[in-house]
Structure formats: structure tokens, C-alpha cells
């Protein structure tokens, strides 16, 4: 198990449920996930919260097979076969890692437009951890 405690997971809910980013008031870049000090200018801890759209493009990806899956995702891989993991370049600038969903793994391409959506990530100690996964942006609203 990943051993991410309940409070630790809870602290990141604004990012995991809603993709809340931190815009540096000094240099204007968006940090997501947030940092204590802006990772672009390394000069400021003064941020304003910004709601990211969740839209972006696939920067790189991989299809995780049984040998590459951490225990939390072993059952998912056994039930559904290899799943895609991608680093997405979000519209607002930052890149973030996330699993893809609702897509045929064979169709994943660098440059594919995607959109974040809430999914079950895993369960630990009976508590379901929700977070974002990326789905192809062409589907629906």
C-alpha cells in the first residue's frame, strides 16, 4: 500500500478534486501541484489560487503492464489490462502526471487533447481516495 495517510491525502483535495493551481504573484507562472516557493522564479511564496480548466495535451505517455503496476493498481490492471499513464501539459502551463481513462490504450498519442475528470484512484484502510484522471477531450462536454 502507498501509505498516504488520510490527513495527507485530504490536504491535497483542492488539487486532486478540482485542479486548483497557485499563480506566483511575482512572476505570473502557475505552480501545479503547488510548491512552497515558486519553482519558476525561486523568489516568491506569494501565490493566488487559480482554478485550472483541466484541459491540456499529452506530453508523453506509457502503457503500464502487470510488471509496472504498483500494488494499489494491480487489481485494476488485472481486470482491465494495461492502463495509460501520461504527463499532460495543461493549458495554463504546468505539466502534471495522471492516468488516462475512457480511452483505448492503443489510441493514446503525444499531442492528444485531454481533459481532467474525477475518478476513483484507490482505496486504503477502507477510505476511497478520489482524484483526477484524464479523458480524451473530444468526448462530450
Amino acid at each position, binding site marked *: *500500500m*502507498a*501509505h*498516504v495517510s488520510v490527513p*495527507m491525502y485530504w490536504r*491535497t483535495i483542492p488539487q486532486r478534486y478540482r485542479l486548483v493551481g497557485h499563480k506566483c504573484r511575482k512572476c505570473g507562472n502557475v505552480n501545479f*501541484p503547488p*510548491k512552497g516557493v515558486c*519553482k519558476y522564479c525561486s523568489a516568491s511564496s506569494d501565490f493566488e489560487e487559480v482554478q485550472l480548466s483541466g484541459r491540456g495535451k499529452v*506530453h*508523453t*505517455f*506509457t*502503457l*503500464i*503492464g502487470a*510488471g*509496472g*503496476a*504498483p*500494488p*494499489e*493498481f494491480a487489481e*485494476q490492471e488485472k481486470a482491465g489490462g*494495461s*492502463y495509460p*499513464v*501520461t*504527463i499532460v501539459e495543461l493549458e495554463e502551463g*504546468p*505539466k*502534471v*502526471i*495522471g*492516468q488516462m481513462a475512457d480511452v483505448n490504450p492503443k489510441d493514446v498519442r*503525444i499531442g492528444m487533447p485531454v481533459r481532467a475528470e474525477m475518478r476513483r*484512484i*484507490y482505496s486504503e484502510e477502507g477510505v476511497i*481516495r478520489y*482524484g483526477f484522471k484524464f479523458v480524451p477531450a473530444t468526448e462530450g462536454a
Partner: protein
Amino acid sequence: MRNVAIVGAGQSRYGEFPEKGIKELFLEAYKDMAASVDRNYDPKRIEAAYIGNLGCGGFQLGNMSALVSEYAGLAYIPTMRIENACASGGYALATAAMDVLSGTHEVVLAGGVEKMTDVSNLKTKYWLGVSGDTEYERLAGTTFSGLYALIAQRHMHEFGTKREHLSMVAVKNHKNGAQNPKAQFQRETTLEKAMKAPMVASPLNLFDCCSITDGGSAVLVTTAEKAKEFTDTPIYIEGFGASSDYLAIHDRATTTTLEGTRRAAERAYRMAGVGPKDVQIAEVHDCFTIAELLAYEDLGFCKKGEAGAFIEEGHTEITGDKPVNASGGLKAKGHPIGSTGTGQAYEMFHQLRGTVNKPARQVKGVERGLLHNVGGSGGTVAVTILAR
């Protein structure tokens, strides 16, 4: 710089040993090191020990360095566990060098040990998965294979690196490992086999990934002056450099360069007063085949994006002009996480002295070698330059 030198180096056999724990593995490495010192070795002369280790054998989280030191007969010395994931050993070596350079101690042991095969598959995957960014990378469904796969996919996209290039690394390193009696895997493989192995995290297949391993290593570090008491052929630590990087690869400016490698190498080269062209042999961190290709570029052996051509042209074979991983690398030799960095030093010590334990992998007439040790997906990196 010629102020610090290695006068002895040892390594245990790397592999899977149900009968040996971290204490026994460290002892084996330590004894091998003691036996390698040409003369005047006396355990009472060791003044400090820096021991690289990640998982503590799965049981001893605190004070692990005291445990293995006293087991090997080195009680009462200042000892410290160095942890920077897979770069622990390289950092232990750098710490030992800094200790000696500072004048605090004169004879210091730098080593590493890891016991990875004792615990269940589930627990192993836990340990392997917590040196990347646990909060986001782990919970996106990756362990290190996934992260390096993301890097490989982008490298192939940006530079046209091919599937074959990845497998060439595996083939070369297994060929070298077959000539290393201490390697975990001592069988050659073919390009076809390496390319057709089952997929772990695309494009990386089973043959692109190093194994889990038990093992230990130790080197004896001292001042250039004191070195003469032990040997006529000390190996100098000409330079060392280290760096960290953003832990999660998505936080980095680019996914196709390990900035940690670049900066650590820059610092090591600067301290040594040399450049990549002056390095004649290297042991690099091929936890995954793509990692070795990246190392060619980020250490300055070839231009960014040209690693595929570099290996294809044969430069990094034992017979080439820049032999890389003559030991078999992490791929064939094995990767006992805390030990890997000082294990590289063990190989290079013998390569530079011409005393490698099997002539078939001895690279002849080399004077300067480089060690490249990476923690996880590059969160920490240590580079060391050794020279006759």
C-alpha cells in the same frame, strides 16, 4: 585534485541470497575490501564509516549503520547511514571524500548495502515505489519503470531514438556481465530476445529493466599522503559533484534530460579540471536501458539526442573508445540500491589498476574513469571522477 585516494575496494557477490541479510552482505564486502589493500591494513585505523542504504533490509529503520559496522568489527567509530535512494552509495563516497578533505578524519570507509529479496512482492513494490514522488507519481499508477518509460517515450518522440537502441544497451551489458563472476546475471542475450520481452511499461520491456538484488560494497578512502602506506597504486578521487532535481518528473523543465546528472557531472569535471573527452571509461546508472542512453548525453559523451547513434556506432563497448559499464552495469550486475554507487567505485578501482577479476572485461590502459550514480528518476545524482 589529488588530495584524496581510494586504497582498497571490495564487493560481495550480487544476487538473491536467502541465507544472507544486510549484516552478512556488508561483512562480505568489508572483508573483500580489506583483502584488496596491498599492505598495512588494520581495521583499527578506520576512523569513520558512511554507509549507503535505502530499505534497511526491511526491518531496521533507525541506527542501521551502527548495526552493520559493529557486526563487521568496527564498533565505536562515527558511522552514518546515507540515504538518497539509488544514489546513496555515490553520496556515501562523496561524504567520505569531504570528511577526508576537511581534515576531520584520515582513513574512512565508504560503502553501501541492500537486502531486497527478503520481503514479499507487495512490500518490495512498496519500497520501489516510494523514491519517486509518492503523492502524484505513485498515485498515478507508476513505479520507476513507468517514470523512465515516460522519459523514453518522449526521447523517442523528440530525437527519433529507436526500440533497438534501448535493447542494444541490454545486450552490451549482459555481454559484459557474463564476464563478471560477481554479477547477478552472467548470461548473454540477443538483440531479438531483448526486443521481444514482455512489456512492463511501454516502451520498456522486461529486458529494459534492472532487477532487484542483494549486495554490499565498500571502499577505503584516505589522504593522498596516507595512501602511500597502503599501496603504490592509489586511485585518486580527482573530482566529485552532486546535484538534486525536482523529484516529480512533471515538475522538470524537460523530461529528456536529467538535470541532476548534467549539474553533478559539471561540478565533478570542474573540480577535477577535466572534461568528458578526458574520461576513458565509465560506470553509469543503467537502472533502465533509457537511463544509460540519457547518461551518454547528460555526461557530455555525445550531444543531446544522439545517444542512439552513439551506442549503435559501438563507442561504448569494451572494445570501443568510451567503454561504459564493463562490469555489466546495473542491468547484468544487479542493483542493490544502497550499494550500487560504491559498487561502481569497486569496479573502477580495479579497472584503473588493471586488477579486474576476469581479464575478458578488463579495459586496457585506462587512466581516468567516471562513476555516475542516480537516485530514483534523477531526484539525486552523484558523479565521481577517479584517476591513477
